[in-house]
Structure formats: C-alpha cells, structure tokens
C-alpha cells in the first residue's frame, strides 16, 4: 500500500484555502497562532466580505456552528471572540473563522445575510454573551426572556445559587456540612438587578416585544382584518415539549411564524464551564434524552481531540470504538422509530405507530440498561473508551417485591435483535405507514425545504439529507471506526415531510447494515481492553487549546466546541445542537401552508426540547 503514496508535499485543500484567503485579504486575515488553536482571525470590518469569499469562492458553503467565547482575564487581553465553523459539503475539515471584539461595546457585523443559518446562533450569542450584531434582522433574546438583566455566559455573570467558580466545591469535603442551596442563599446575594428596578413596576417586555414584531402589520387589539395571531404552545401536545410558536395567519394560511423557546433553558453551557471535563459527560445525556449514547460520543470525540494535542495520549481501543458504534447505531434506530411515531401522532394517528415503535425501543433500552446501568441517562462513554465492557449475560436479580427476572446471553440477544427483530420492525413500520393515503396526502409536497435553503439555513441530519444534500459527518469527517464500515449515506430529493419520513426508514436500514458488520468485530475483540490508558482517573489533564468535535446524531450534526485553558474545567463548552439550528428553517418551511400542517412540519424536523433550550 505504501509504495503508491506520493511523497511529494501536497497542500491540503484546507491549507490551500487559508493561503488563498490570506493572499486575497492581506492585513485583514491572520492565522490563529495560539497554541492548540486553528483557523484564521478576521478583522471585524472585513468579516462579511471574507465570509462571502469563503462561501462562494473557496466552497466552504455550510456554516456548521457560530458561537462566542469570553476571554475575560486571559493573557491576550479581554475580548469576546466569535467563532464560525464552515465546512465544504464535499467533506473535509473545517475552515474556522474567528473575529474579536472588546467586551465593553461588543459589536460585530451580522452574517445572516451570508448564512441565514446564523440567525438563531447570533441571537443566542447576543442573548448569552452580549454581542450585538449590526444588521441582524431580528436581534432579540432567544433563550432568556426579553428584559432579562445581564448575559449569562459571560465569565463575570453569576447564577442565583452561585457557590464557587469551578467544581469540585470546597464546601463538600473534608468539612462537608450539608445545606440546601435555597436555604443557604435565598434570592441569592449574587442576583443582580438593573439600577432602579422595582418589582411593582415590572411589566413583562417579552410578551410585548413578541406581539409587536410578529404580526407584520396586524394589530392584535384591532380585529378589523382577517389576519390573526395565534400562540401555539407552550403547552400544546404536538410541540414535543414546552415549545411555542407564534403564528400569524391569513385565514388558515401561515404568513409568519416565530418560534419561542427557552422554557427548558438551564444554561447547560454555564453548568458545563463550572464542571470538570468528566463531570460534563452525564450532563450531555440530558441534552437529547432519546439519544444519550450519541451525545456521549460527540463529547468524547471533542475532548479526545483536545487530549490528542498533548504528548501522552492513548486513542480509544478498537473494541471500545466498536462498542461505541454499536451503541450509537442502536440509538439511531430507536430515535428514528420514535421520531416517526411522534410524527404520526402529530398527523393524527393517535399513538398506534408510536406504541409499536416504543416496543422496539424498549428492547434496545433493556440492552442499554444492562450494559450502562441506565435506560436513558446512559453516561457510558469515557475519554479513551467506554465505562464498562459488554456483560456476558443480560440478567437481573429480584430485589424488590413482585420483581420478574430475565436472563439472556448478550451476544445472542444482540444477534437476534439486529438480524431479526429490528429489520422486521422497520418493515412493519413501512407496511403500516408508507403507502397510507392519509399520510401521503398530508405529507407529500408539504413543508418543502429546497436544497439551497437547506444548506443556507445550516439544516443538519435527516432534514438536510431529505433535501438532496448527501452530507453525513460519518463520511464527511469520519470519526470512530466508520471509515472501516460499509454503508451508504441516505439521501432524498424533495425535501418535504414525506421525504423526511422516508429518509428515516432508509437511515435505519443503513444502521442495520452497520450493526451487522459490528457484530463480528465484537466477537473477535472479545476480552480485549475497552478503555485505553489508565483507568480510574476522575480528573484527567486536558491540554490547553480548542476542539470542535462533531458526531452524526440521529437528529443531525451534534457539535461540541470545547476550549481548554489547561485547567481542570473547560473554559468554554458550547453545544451545537441540531434541534435548535434546524428550527431556524421552520418559518421558511411553514410559510404558505395551513396551520394544521405546522404540527406535521415540526414533527418531521424531530426536535427534542432538552437540546433546543439547553
């Protein structure tokens, strides 16, 4: 194999792109030479021009993630930094654009004109970091409510029950006298209010702002028009949680739609920055609670990228990677089955398809429970492998009254599940739904997202691929053992609800194909280590630097942007959640359709609010 490889030094496409960028914008673009960092730092004044050049000429047309970092008190000087990860849809690594602004009057040009997909992400950066985006069409808070005081992700902002900057807290040991946070700190001393604030005069600006902007010329108080504004949710059975859409209707047709989110916001990223690196692992379970295994893998990939910057680092063993792929692909199947079930719930097939999906999910969850110890909050991956090997038997012992005991051989269980049970379940779903006339009538041609829009709006996962873009992180920027496995990237071309349904069936079939290849690997590597390096380290040393680890989650590309300053806690921990960013295109998909279709369109995006609101 080696003799075919040319020794001549070739410039990688990324290197070439950066060179061209530097040549074109001399003086405004410089390489990020901080240790452990990559990409280029762009002068804010040239940002829009550079972004347009990167998108159109260099071919990095897909904006994966846009996020801000607060470098308060760091050696290079206090500033906020906006980080954009752009990708070529042909595959390959990211071209990372960065731009810096002082913390005081943080203002940057908006990139919504270049990538509409930056819309929500810039609003998030404004909300949580306090960067104003000049030229943003709708720069309002998105996760916090309008009128919230402060920007929670800034390093000098403190939450209500603030105890200490970083975990582990000193009060826990050796003098750990227990106290409840709410007794200790009622209405926290560290809650800040704007000057002159009194509760008596408080009026929610959030609702006011919402109804002032959305109606597009409709006066809510004045009904002398056939346009009405309807607030759907947050307690609506079809919004998959506490999600709300404010819809402007002309008769029954949608003319404008504004998603309102943040009801489940818990500042996951701030918690992540207080935590140590390993502490974050169980927290990632709670993002997309259907796919905790895949969330774990994405975070492990990100931190392993950071670890690889250091000197001593053992990559995960082959068995560990095989187990990871097994878990992640099973997760994909269970997520897609349940997603189809919920989609059908939304379309009115009350619970029958969902319950059939849940039977299969139950069997997969039984396996997860036996392996990792928990059905949904698996917390199974570690940096360098997995927490435990597969057990010999999936068995239980009766501990409670009325306990019923089961005992299966693990590999036998897996073989039966993968070769027989799950393919049958997928076929059954196909029989039950695909040709059903009610479904075809309601789904075909509804909620269309064109190929161009899908790319521009940074859609990911099944939503992107159903619009005719065969982009899959497992192939585009492979991780784990995916390069060794044979599978196709599913793609459909119409971009409507029906194709988003069909592509989930296709992806499940591909997952079965992958799983069938993983089974023999598991047999072969039986008894080999499932963890590389020294076990039992609850606080591994993570070298300073940045890493963007991404994994193809069932719902789309899940990215973790992790910045380490060499300490035991991440300096910045950002989650690029597919559910959140896929919602950017929701209005685009819904415009012109009937109000009843919104429910189906939302169901076809497949969101989980734990991940949207973070």
């Amino acid at each position, binding site marked *: 194999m080696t003799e075919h490889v040319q020794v001549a030094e070739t410039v990688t496409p990324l290197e070439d792109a950066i060179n061209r960028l530097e040549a074109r914008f001399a003086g405004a673009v410089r390489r990020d030479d901080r240790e452990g960092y990559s990409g280029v730092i762009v002068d804010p004044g040239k940002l829009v021009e550079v972004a347009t050049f990167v998108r159109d000429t260099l071919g990095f047309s897909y904006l994966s993630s846009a996020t801000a970092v607060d470098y308060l008190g760091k050696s290079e000087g206090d500033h906020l930094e906006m980080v954009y990860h752009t990708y070529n849809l042909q595959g390959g690594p990211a071209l990372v654009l960065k731009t810096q602004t002082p913390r005081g009057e943080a203002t940057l040009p908006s990139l919504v004109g270049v990538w509409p997909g930056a819309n929500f992400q810039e609003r998030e950066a404004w909300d949580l970091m306090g960067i104003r985006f000049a030229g943003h069409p709708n720069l309002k808070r998105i996760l916090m409510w309008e009128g919230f005081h402060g920007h929670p992700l800034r390093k000098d902002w403190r939450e209500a029950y603030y105890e200490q900057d970083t975990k*582990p807290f000193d009060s826990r*040991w*050796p003098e750990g006298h*227990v106290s409840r946070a709410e007794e200790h700190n009622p209405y926290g001393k560290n809650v800040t209010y704007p000057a002159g604030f009194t509760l008596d005069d408080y009026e929610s600006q959030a609702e006011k702002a919402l109804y002032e902007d959305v109606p597009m010329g409709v006066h809510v108080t004045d009904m002398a028009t056939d346009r009405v504004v309807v607030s759907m949710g947050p307690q609506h059975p079809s919004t998959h949680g506490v999600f709300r859409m404010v819809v402007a209707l002309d008769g029954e047709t949608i003319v404008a739609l504004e998603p309102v989110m943040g009801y489940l916001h818990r500042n996951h990223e701030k918690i992540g920055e207080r935590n140590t690196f390993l502490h974050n692992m169980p927290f990632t379970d709670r993002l997309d609670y259907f796919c905790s295994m895949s969330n774990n893998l994405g975070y492990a990939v990100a931190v392993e990228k950071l670890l690889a910057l250091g000197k001593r680092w053992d990559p995960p063993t082959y068995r560990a990677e095989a187990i990871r792929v097994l878990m992640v692909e099973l997760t994909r199947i269970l997520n897609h089955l349940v997603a189809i079930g919920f989609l059908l719930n939304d379309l009115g097939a009350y619970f*029958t398809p969902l319950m059939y999906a849940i039977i299969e999910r139950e069997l997969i969850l039984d396996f997860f429970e*036996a392996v990792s110890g928990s059905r949904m909050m698996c917390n199974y991956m570690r940096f360098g492998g997995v927490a435990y090997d597969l057990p010999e038997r999936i068995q239980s012992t009766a501990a409670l009254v*009325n*306990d*019923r005991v089961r005992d299966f051989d693990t590999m036998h269980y897996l073989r039966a599940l993968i070769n027989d049970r799950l393919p049958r379940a997928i076929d*059954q779903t196909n029989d039950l739904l695909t040709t059903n006339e009610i479904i075809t009538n309601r789904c075909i041609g509804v909620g269309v997202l064109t190929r161009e829009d899908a790319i521009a709006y940074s859609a990911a996962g099944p939503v992107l691929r159903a619009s005719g873009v065969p982009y899959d992180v497992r192939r585009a920027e492979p991780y784990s053992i995916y390069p060794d496995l044979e599978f196709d990237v599913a793609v459909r071309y119409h971009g409507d609800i029906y194709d988003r349904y069909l592509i989930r069936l296709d992806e499940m079939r591909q997952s079965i194909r992958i799983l069938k290849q993983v089974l023999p690997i598991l047999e072969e590597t039986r008894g080999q280590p499932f963890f590389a390096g020294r076990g039992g380290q609850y606080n591994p040393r993570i070298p300073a630097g940045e890493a963007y680890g991404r994994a193809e989650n069932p719902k789309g590309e899940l990215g973790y942007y992790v910045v380490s300053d060499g300490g035991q806690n991440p300096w910045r921990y950002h989650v690029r959640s597919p559910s959140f960013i896929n919602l950017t295109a929701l209005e685009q998909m819904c415009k012109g359709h009937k109000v009843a279709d919104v429910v189906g369109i939302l169901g076809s995006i497949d969101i989980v609010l734990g991940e949207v609101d973070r």
Partner: protein
Amino acid sequence: MYGSGIVRGLGVTLKHFVNTYLEDIRWGFRRHVPDEAFPLRQGLETRGIFTVEYPDEKIATPERFRFIPFLVVDNYDHPERPGHDWCTSCGICAKACPPQCIWIVRGTNPETGRPVPEPAEFYIDIDICMNCGFCAEFCPFDAIKMDHDYELASYDRTSAHIFNKQRLSKEFRYWQSIAPTRAAEEAQARGGWEHKDVLKQREKEARAQAKASESGS
C-alpha cells in the same frame, strides 16, 4: 387502488391484535405474566402486547442498574468489625460527583485531633443526585455503590430527601445479593471478600507471624 395503503396498515394492527390473544391462550389467560413466561412476554420473541402491570409485576433491574448510591458497611454479624464503614472519607466521590450532592465530614480522633479513615458524617441530597454512578466508579475502596431500589417516593422533600450516613449504610451482604458477579469481580481484584484495609492488615499480621516463627525457630 385508493385506500389500499390504509387497508395494508390495518393488517399490521390486526396482526398485533390476534397475536396478543394467541399469547394469552398459550399462557392460559392468567392475569399477570407467570414467572416462567416473563422472558418470552418481555423479550425478543414477543409478538403481541408488551405491557408490564406495575406494581403487580415489575421488571427486575439488571446488575449494573444504578440508582441513588448507598454506603457499604461490614455485615452486622461480622466477627471483627460489625457494621464498620468501608468508606475512608478520602473525598474522591465528593470530587467526582457532577452535581456535587455528596457532603462528607472527615472523621477525626477526638484525642489527637488527627484524621482517621472513616467518615464522621456522610450526606447525599438525593434531589440533586443525577444517578450517574461516578462515585461508585471512582471509589478506590468499593465503599460506595449504586442501589437498585428505585421506589423512593416520600411526602416531604425538605426533610426526607437528604440521606445521612445511617440511612445510606447497607450491609456488604446486600451488595452481594443485588450484584453477585460484580461483587465477586471486585473481591477478586482486592484479593478477598473483606475491605482492602482489613486484607492489608491481615497480610501484615501474617507476615509478622511468619517472621516471628522464623526467628523463633
């Protein structure tokens, strides 16, 4: 033909309906699934209904199942140290705990004031505990383990949900009963069924004895 898709789908539900009754006939229409049939009614072979009628029947949890932690203490009929804590109050669980729900007061000798390897107090706020299992995973003494008892409803969260050392402590025998294979694996790694320190102490004594008998002879 228009409508054939709907008929095809209804065929699937009909199949489920019939299968449920076929399985009922097979097990003689017993209201709850009999023990011997349970792996078939809740397993890969199931074709019909898939319901477990909690609380009249419960799915036993697998060995690795993790719920609120408990502290391992020596069996209450242990000959040398009945009910002695395995915990040495090293504080690793408190540091590894992501939501920081573990509070430990390190034990001190009242006479010398120096720390002793056992906790004076040990608290877990189970409202905060996220059942991640890191405490059990990183404990170097196998002294904290994840429990299987998930039925913890109570009437008052302010008083009933902070578990103290007494509430958390369970006999080593209990750990052996809920996780027999893992208890055996850990014992093998330690070199015996006892606590690490006890084994070390015994080894030391045995060596001293051997030395004494050697010099005596």
